[in-house]
Structures are given as structure tokens and as C-alpha cells.
């Protein structure tokens, strides 16, 4: 058995198949979104579907290369890859070009490249390396500092690019940390409550929420009044949450940039300004909502074909699916993503090394975050923060970054027996 045959045999066929199917679906929908009758050949590099075909082919080359490189390259060079991606994030602040108000792109010839896509990959590797090389079961102070630092550093640099969406993606590593016991269930729950209260604060007057919290505190206080110290806990919790709600409101009014504020306001207050910030979301919902059960058919979407949805090949690619393939198509896409994510979790759990398990969880978490937020924003559940739908959206950086992450993990999985 040659080494090459072994790699194919040991690779997870399910993930590879899902990868190929999703990339193909993505390309078809990019084609539909850009299609104009009688114009543009499939390989026309002046069109996004022509370019995407090239990205897919080069992505497959990357995938093959990853599978052929010795696995120790990734474990050994994890920190170096991370370091290079940090350098690129710094460099882009000086040498990058501004696209859509974010300074997150290098332009090389006709192609734009987004280093933050590499940074996600690098961060996943670095985090896996830190946790995988821990000497004790419980992380020490130095481990914690390194672990969180390795996530916060690129997140901070991406924030400097004014790319809020990608910055938030780094939040997703908390899911991997949760699995490793770095974050407790309570912390995750508190995080959930914090996010819930955050959205609630934007939706209604903060004093109503604080009033609601006070009411709940009184009820809980009365129930637990016989437990010593419980009342003190309840009061403390109430004050902390109220302070949080108030500061979110303050931050929203005084710190956020106007266009972010507008986008959030659109989300929480409905279609207030249809010509402005609400336009994207409104047209997106029209496209998806008008798809019905079976959709309007390939190349038959009126919202898609007459270009009513802006950014339709990238952040709003899900509109094309929703409009032309209907609820049935939406179901398929969501089904494929959930299947892929659960399959990746399954693979991560069967890893023998902590390194590859953490990496697998990180990859899954990042993909999950993109999936949830991207589709969530097209249907109006999440503010429009502009991150792509992995494997589906148009864009070389995103596709390559995702391919790197998935296939590096598949490589680990294929070699899981050797990695002790």
C-alpha cells in the first residue's frame, strides 16, 4: 500500500463528498445570481462564476497538497503559520486596500486576498498547539494567558480593519474552549444570556428590561429567602445584569459607528428605512420569502435575475437558493451544513491527540458561526454584519481558507493513528 493510496483510503469520504456537493451548489447559485441571458461564458474570467470556477479548481489543488504534505508540517509549524498570519494582518493595515469600508484586503493583480481568512486557520492551529502541549490536565495561568491571547490578538487586529463581522467570528473559538473544559457550562450560559440581553436591549427601552430583571429578582428572592446568602446573590446578579444592560445601551448610543448602528436598528426595529440600511435585508427577505415551497426554478428568480439584492454572490448568496429553490432548497442547504458540522464533531471526537481534536473543534466552531450568522442575517434574525457562507459564497480567500481548515483536519483524521 503506497502512502498515497493510504491517504485516500483513510480520508473521510463523507466530508469530502459534502465539501464537493456544497462547492458545486455554491457555484451554480453564483452562476444564477450573475447570469444574464446571452452573456458570459462559463469560464469567462470577467464574471464571478468564471472566477469562482478557478477558485474551486485551485482550492482542490490546495486540498490535494494538504493531504500530501507530511502531517508533522502542520503540528510543527502551527505557531509559525500563526505568526505569519498575524504579520499579514498587521501588514494589511498599511498596505491593504479599502473595500466596502473595511481595510481587510490585499490586492495582487486582479485578485483581492483577505488575510483574516488565513488568520482563522492560523489561530485554530495555534490554539490546538497550546492546548495539545499542556503538561497538566487543568490549564495553568500561563496556559490561559496564551490560549486567550492567541485568539484575542488576531481578533483585535481584524477589528482595526473595521471588519466587525470577522472579528466576531473569533468568538466562535469559545465553543472549542468549552469542549476542552476551559469555559464552564455556566460561563457559556452567561454568555448566551449576555447575547440575549444585548439583542433585547437594542430592541426595547433599557428601563423596561431593568424593570423586568427587578421583577424577576424579587420573585427569585422571595422563593429562596430561607437560604442563607441567597438574597445577596440575587441582588448582586440583578445589579450586574442591570449594569450590563445599561452599558450596552450606552455603548450602542455612543461608541458604535453610524452604519453599524443603522444596521442593528434595522434588524431590531423592522424595515424602518427601506432605501437605506434596511434595503439589503428587505430585498433579501423578499427574495427568500417569495421562493415558496419549491422555489421559482433555476435562473427564474425575479429578485435574483433583476438584481434587486445587493452583494448577492457573496454575503447574500443564500437569497438565490431561497428564491430559486424555495424552502426545499433551504432545507437541503441547512441539512448539508448540519450534517457536515456534526460529521466534523464526530471526527474530532475520535482523534487520539488533543491537538487534532482542538483543531477539529475550532474548524467546526468557525464554520458553525459563519453558517448561523450568514443565514441568520439573510432572514433577519441577526444584524447584517457581512460574513460569507462557507463553500457557497463567491470569493477566493473564503473558499481557500475554508478548504485549508477542512482538509488539514481531514489530514489529521487520516493520520490519527500515527499522531501520538
Amino acid at each position, binding site marked *: 500500500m503506497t502512502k498515497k493510496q493510504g491517504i485516500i483510503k483513510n480520508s473521510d469520504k463523507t466530508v469530502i463528498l459534502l465539501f464537493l456537493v456544497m462547492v458545486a451548489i455554491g457555484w451554480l447559485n453564483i452562476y444564477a445570481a450573475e447570469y444574464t441571458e446571452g452573456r458570459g461564458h462559463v469560464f469567462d474570467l470577467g464574471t464571478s462564476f468564471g472566477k469562482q470556477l478557478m477558485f474551486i479548481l485551485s482550492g482542490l489543488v490546495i486540498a490535494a497538497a494538504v493531504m500530501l504534505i507530511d502531517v508533522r508540517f502542520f503540528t510543527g509549524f502551527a505557531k509559525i503559520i500563526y505568526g505569519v498570519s498575524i504579520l499579514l494582518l498587521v501588514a494589511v493595515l498599511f498596505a491593504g486596500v479599502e473595500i466596502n469600508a473595511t481595510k481587510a484586503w490585499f490586492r495582487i493583480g486582479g485578485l483581492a486576498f483577505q488575510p483574516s481568512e488565513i488568520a482563522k486557520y492560523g489561530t485554530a492551529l495555534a490554539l490546538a498547539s497550546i492546548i495539545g502541549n499542556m503538561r497538566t490536565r487543568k490549564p495553568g495561568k500561563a496556559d490561559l494567558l496564551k490560549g486567550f491571547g492567541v485568539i484575542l490578538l488576531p481578533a483585535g487586529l481584524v477589528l482595526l480593519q473595521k471588519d466587525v463581522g470577522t472579528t466576531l467570528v473569533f468568538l466562535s473559538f469559545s465553543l472549542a474552549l468549552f469542549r476542552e473544559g476551559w469555559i464552564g457550562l455556566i460561563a457559556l450560559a452567561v454568555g448566551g444570556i449576555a447575547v440575549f440581553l444585548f439583542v433585547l436591549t437594542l430592541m426595547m427601552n433599557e428601563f423596561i428590561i431593568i424593570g423586568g430583571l427587578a421583577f424577576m429578582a424579587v420573585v427569585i428572592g422571595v422563593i429562596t429567602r430561607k437560604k442563607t446568602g441567597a438574597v445577596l446573590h440575587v441582588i448582586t446578579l440583578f445589579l450586574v445584569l442591570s449594569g450590563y444592560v445599561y452599558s450596552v445601551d450606552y455603548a450602542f448610543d455612543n461608541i458604535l459607528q453610524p452604519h453599524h448602528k443603522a444596521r442593528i436598528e434595522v434588524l431590531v426595529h423592522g424595515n424602518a428605512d427601506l432605501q437605506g440600511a434596511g434595503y439589503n435585508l428587505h430585498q433579501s427577505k423578499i427574495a427568500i420569502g417569495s421562493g415558496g415551497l419549491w422555489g421559482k426554478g433555476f435562473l427564474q428568480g425575479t429578485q435574483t435575475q433583476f438584481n434587486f439584492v445587493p452583494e448577492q454572490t457573496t454575503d447574500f448568496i443564500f437569497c438565490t437558493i431561497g428564491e430559486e429553490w424555495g424552502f426545499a432548497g433551504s432545507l437541503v442547504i441547512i441539512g448539508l451544513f448540519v450534517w457536515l458540522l456534526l460529521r466534523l464533531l464526530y471526527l474530532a471526537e475520535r482523534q487520539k491527540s488533543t491537538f487534532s481534536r482542538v483543531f477539529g473543534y475550532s474548524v467546526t466552531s468557525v464554520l458553525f458561526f459563519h453558517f448561523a450568522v450568514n443565514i*441568520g442575517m439573510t432572514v433577519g434574525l441577526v444584524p447584517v454584519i457581512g460574513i460569507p457562507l462557507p463553500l457557497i459564497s463567491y470569493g477566493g480567500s473564503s473558499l481557500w481558507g475554508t478548504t485549508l481548515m477542512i482538509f488539514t483536519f481531514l489530514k489529521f483524521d487520516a493520520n490519527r493513528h500515527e499522531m501520538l
Partner: protein
Amino acid sequence: MQIHNKSGQYAGRRKIVSGIIIVVGLVLLGRLFMLQIIDPSYKAFARSNFLRHITDYPARGLIYDRHGELLVYNEVHYDLMVIPGQVGDIDTLEFCRLLNMDVSTFESRLLQARRHSRFRASVFERQISKTTFAAFQEKMFRFPGFFVQPRTLRRYTYPIATHTFGYVGEAGPGIIGNDPYYRPGDFIGISGIERAYEKELRGQKGLRIRMVDVFNRDIGPFHDGRYDTLAIAGKDIYTTLDTQLQLYGEKLMQNKRGSIVAIEPATGEVLTLVSAPSFDPGLLVGRQRTRNYRMLQNDTLKPLFNRALMAQYPPGSVFKLVSTLIALQEGVVEPHTRYGCGGIYHAGGISVRCRSHPSPVNVVTAIKYSCNTYSSIIFQNTINNPVFGGIQHAFSHWRDYLVSFGFGRTFGSDLAFELPGLVATADYYDRLYGRSGWRSQTILSLGIGQGELGVTPMQLANMTAAIANRGYYLTPHVVKAIDDPSSPNTRYSLANNIPIDKEHFETIVHAMHMVVEDGTGRFSRIPGISMAGKTGTVQNPHGENHSVFVAFAPVDDPQIAISVVVENAGYGSVWAAPIASLMIEQYLTGKVQRKWFEDRVLNQSFLTAQP
């Protein structure tokens, strides 16, 4: 081993992470289910995004006179329309400069249109001039959401027959709410023929559905035009009006208040319908319509009021024709029955005056001299006829005759806004005087056409036509044919018979001929034409009496029956009779020989003599 332990300690958390992924997937699916399956509004939004419904307005039907002369036609103009949902970031100042409009007007109009509908077209500016249209057309691409809609306006060959034509106005909110055919900005017939024949005249709007992209560029017809409908032009209306007679009638009635109604007895076709004072129908067309309408509404001469169909007068002496016919039919008087007249008639404390004339009189001479005494006697004979055994029954019987002549009710023909007039019932007098409190002398004035009687000039003309026909009339109407002049309007071809024998009509016709030859109307005799007529002078408690004359000619082959009312003009023989005589001469000979006679009428004004 350490690694395995580590893996083991938190391995259960995989389930939580899996759970989170599945829950999020289900939440997204639930939301998509709401959007795509449950909520239908997005489908409508998507349609309104890319579909434009373009209405093609058909030309409104034309209106002709009885000889095929064109009287009402159309002229194209342009309305500036807006679809508020598509108005993007436009150069408002430039736009306002083109339209010569200030910015606040622009904004309030846009807001108004938006309130109506974001996705349906509303009229933004009505009837823009050709130059504005040309300038705007050139820059149209810079103002997405705006477009120009060609429409037609009514034009009139002559400024006549306003009340008969009626006018066209914008469909109001009430109409739009009740009839889905009409949209804001659509026109609808408001009165006259335009109203009565709205369905025929308007035709059928056509609809084209076009697809547009996000820049509002036309992409092509939706489904290759499968759902498009063609506009169907309105049908033309051929009226019964005689243009020359109508023109002449309006000329004669200048500076007078009153009306002329002329009917062709054999068909019930209205030859002329004049209500004076009148106004140019062109005033109620286009942008100035509202302003002009208000002006006409505030005019103390009430030009908007169609006297021919809506003014109600006691008929006066012309009514003696009807009451005498009834008396003859009831057998309470014979043609040769003679009564003496001493200039006044007394009946139970009530007295009726009469002008001096030869005495005694019979049926014919009583009509000829318009003898009040004779009419009073035969009226009392009719009402007191013992065969009825009571005044209620006798009066109701008498009243039935009146209704058979068309009094006290509308004809239900194609004349918009006709009024029924007034013919009191027995119940009315019972209520007024008590059941046994009234006698024939109580209502004696009815016998000479005064009292509780209100008739319209149209009803008088119809009565005259019925006498000319010797006992029947055809419902008076103004439309001869629709769409095709050779296929006549058959809606009114049934004769309405009056239950009075023909011989009695012959007696009355003879009497009416005598009126003109040698009686109260002799002054208006037309040389060479045999005319039958009856004068009337309607007592008017508010001012000078009204002058009334009814006539038909020729006596043996009636071509025209006419009623003329001139308000506050005094004796019927002095003004109404000459006008009727001139009208008949004009109609039968095509010209008027008696110039001095005509000038006398033309030079007379009664508008200053109003109360």
C-alpha cells in the same frame, strides 16, 4: 493515557455542542418556514418589485347628433404619474424646475401618492403641457419612478347642450371603493349622457405587464404578454339632438331663465333640451374644472341646475288640456256642452277669476280662450261624479289619468337627474283637511293647473307629444343609437297608452289648433304651418308670473312637440309662445322668415327682472 483522560472528562460536552448546532439549524429552518411558506406578503413584494402594470386608456366614445354631426370628441394630453416605491435619489431641484413646482409641493404630492400606495401609480401632476412633456421625456431616465401617461380630454364642437352631454370628472373615493374598475385619476361620467352611458362610452382599459430590473429598466413583457389585455375603445353615442335646433333654442333663451324641450312625437326622441342660463361644457374639462365648477356653483342664476328636467312648476292653463280630456273621457262633459262665463266663478266661498272673452263657451272655445270658469266647472263635475261614491275614490281615479300622462313620476329614461314633479294623492288631502274635510272646491285650483301640482318642462313636452299622437307617448330619450348609427336604441320603442279615447284627443287637438289660429296664441301663428298650441301663465307667488307655451306641428302630421317655459316673463302668449313658434319654424323649414319676430325675442332679457 493522560490524553484519553482529558478527552474522557469533558467528552459529554460533545452532546451539548451538537445540540447547539441542531437547535440553531432548526431555528433557521423555522424562520425560513415562516418566510417561505406561511407569510404570503413577500411574494407580493417580489411581484411589485419587478412587474409594472401599465394601463392603456381607451379613447372615450364620441357623441354625435341625430344627423351624424360630431358634437363631443377627445384631445390627447399627458399626466405625470409616480410610483412612490420606485422613486430613488433624484435631483429634486431639477425635477421641480422642469415642472415649475416648488419643493414643498413636490414633497406633499409624493407623500400623498405614497399614502395611496407605494407600488401603484398615482397621478403626480395632471395635464402637463406639451412643452413640459417634451422636456421631461428627455430627462425621464434620471427620475426613476416617474412616467408620463397619455390621457384624453373632452372637446366640444359647439358650446351647447351642456346639461344633456353632462361632464366627465375624476372618479372619487366613493366610486373607487365600490367599483374595482376605477383607480385614482380615472375619469368617469358625472352627469348627463356621460353618466347614463358611462359603461358604453368608457370602453375597456387595457393592461400590459412589463418586467423591470432594479434600475427600473424595461426588460420585456411578463410571460410573453400572456396576461396582457388590449384596450377596447369606447362606443360612440348617436344622440337624438338636432344641432341646429339646439343652437337656435339656446340662442333664443339667452338672457332668460327657463327651458325648451322639443320631442319628436312619433319616436319620443328629444330634439332639443335647453336649460337657460347655460354654460360652455368646455368649462368643466381639464385642470380648470374644479375652479370653474365652484364658480358655476356660486352663480346666483344656478346655471348647473338643469331646469328642463329638474325645475318643477305648477303647469297653469296648459294643464286644462289634460283636465278637459279627463272630463270628456269620464263623460261629465260633451264637446258641445256650454257654460256661461261672467269673468268670475264662485264655488262654496272660493272664486276663480277669468279674463274677458265671448260667452258662453263649449269645450273648444273654452280652450281657445283659456276659460277658467269652464275648466272649474268640468273639474268639479269630474270629482263630484256620483259613480265614485266619495271624493277619495274620485280623486284617485282622476290622479291615475295624470300619471298615465307621465306626471308625478320620472320616465326612467337615459336622462340623468330627472325629477318626478308633484301630483298630490288623496291621502295627502286627507291628512291636510281630514277625511271628510275636503270637497271638489277645496282643490278647485287643480282644475286650472294651479295648487298642489308640480310638473317639469320635460313632462309638459311629453304631454304635448302624447296629445300630438292622439293618445300615447314613447318614453322621451336622448340616445338614438349606440356604436352603430344604423342599429337604433330599442330601449324606448314601446308606446305608453293613455286610457282616453282618440276622439277626445281629436277634439282637444282641434281646440289647440284654434288657440293658434284665433285664440290666445294667434300672435304666434306661423304662416304656412298648421300649429296646435296652448298658452299658460303660471301664477308665481315669488315674483312675475312664468310664461308657458306647449305646441306641436303640423297638426295632422306632428313632427315636433315642444314646451317652453320662460320664468318671470308674464303671459304665456307674449314670450313662451313666440319662442315655441320660432323653434317650430326653424325645425320644419330649416330657417326663420319672421326676422322682426325673432329679434324681439333675442333682444329681450329677463335676467334683471328676477325677484
